[in-house]
């Protein structure tokens, strides 16, 4: 009579392909992860442009003002009316002067929604100018369709 091989057999699973794939996935996620501290808000739909140059270097201590479609400004994560940003900019200016920096050396990044009114963007620029800021970066989504 043939003898049956009974009992639990120790089946070895080859883990190598799974570990390889997992490491490749980790590498992928590490590469695509965004470590930049740039202020970006999902509520803003930036207009796109082929000529909006990605910044060559890091803009040193920029002030980011994000204008929503509804006409409010997102400043440091807070919703502020356009006419009220002057007070916040004044505070920024005081801080800069304390650090021996001139307001005209700072860059104001304007991230305005494409559907926002141009006049509101101009209002923001005018308020900034009144506080002594004169460098502006109008941010747009980089469109690389060539």
């Amino acid at each position, binding site marked *: 009579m043939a003898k049956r091989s009974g009992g639990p057999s120790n089946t070895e699973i080859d883990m190598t392909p799974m570990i390889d794939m997992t490491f490749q996935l980790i590498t992928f996620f590490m590469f695509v992860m965004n470590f930049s501290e740039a202020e970006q808000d999902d509520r803003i739909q930036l207009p796109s442009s082929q000529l909006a140059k990605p910044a060559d270097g890091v803009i040193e201590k920029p002030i980011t003002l994000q204008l929503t479609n509804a006409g409010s400004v997102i400043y440091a994560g807070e919703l502020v009316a356009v006419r009220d940003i002057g007070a916040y900019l004044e505070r920024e200016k005081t801080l800069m002067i304390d650090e021996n920096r001139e307001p005209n050396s700072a860059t104001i990044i304007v991230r305005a929604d494409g559907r926002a009114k*141009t006049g509101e963007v101009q*209002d923001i620029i005018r308020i900034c100018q009144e506080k002594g800021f004169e460098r502006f970066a109008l941010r747009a989504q980089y469109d690389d369709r060539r």
Partner: protein
Amino acid sequence: MARRSSSGLTDKVEINMTPMIDVVFQLMSFFMCTLKVIAPEGDFDIRMPIAAAAAAAPDDQQVPPVRVKLSAGPDGSLASIAMNGTPVADFDELRKRIIGLVGADSGPNSLAEKTEVEFDADYALKYVNVVKAITAVSGKVENGQVVELIRKIKFTPPKKG
């Protein structure tokens, strides 16, 4: 004679992979959860001191500024474009007019470098149109390369109403 165990020479050392796989999966979960896909962004750099905005005082700039008027329709869409008072059909034509005015050369001391464009946009105009206009005057893409045109850009003070 004592028989040597044949397995003595080729002993397979079993490494316990479980902690490593645990850590690797935790790392992967972390990266997957924190992943935020962001489209690349770029800037149009504008230097606009208040004095220049308030009064366009004649200075050593021999070239008069090009004035681009962008008018809005009732819903904020673009109704018309005019360059120095002359109607322009669209942004492509605006770019062609700019190239016709300043030439294709944008090197140092070129006309393109000296010329300034002043945008006069209606208050209610959707901002996307201004970005399109800035794109049209500031350069073009030719064979995948960006050819710069006018870099000096300013806005007229906002006019509500």
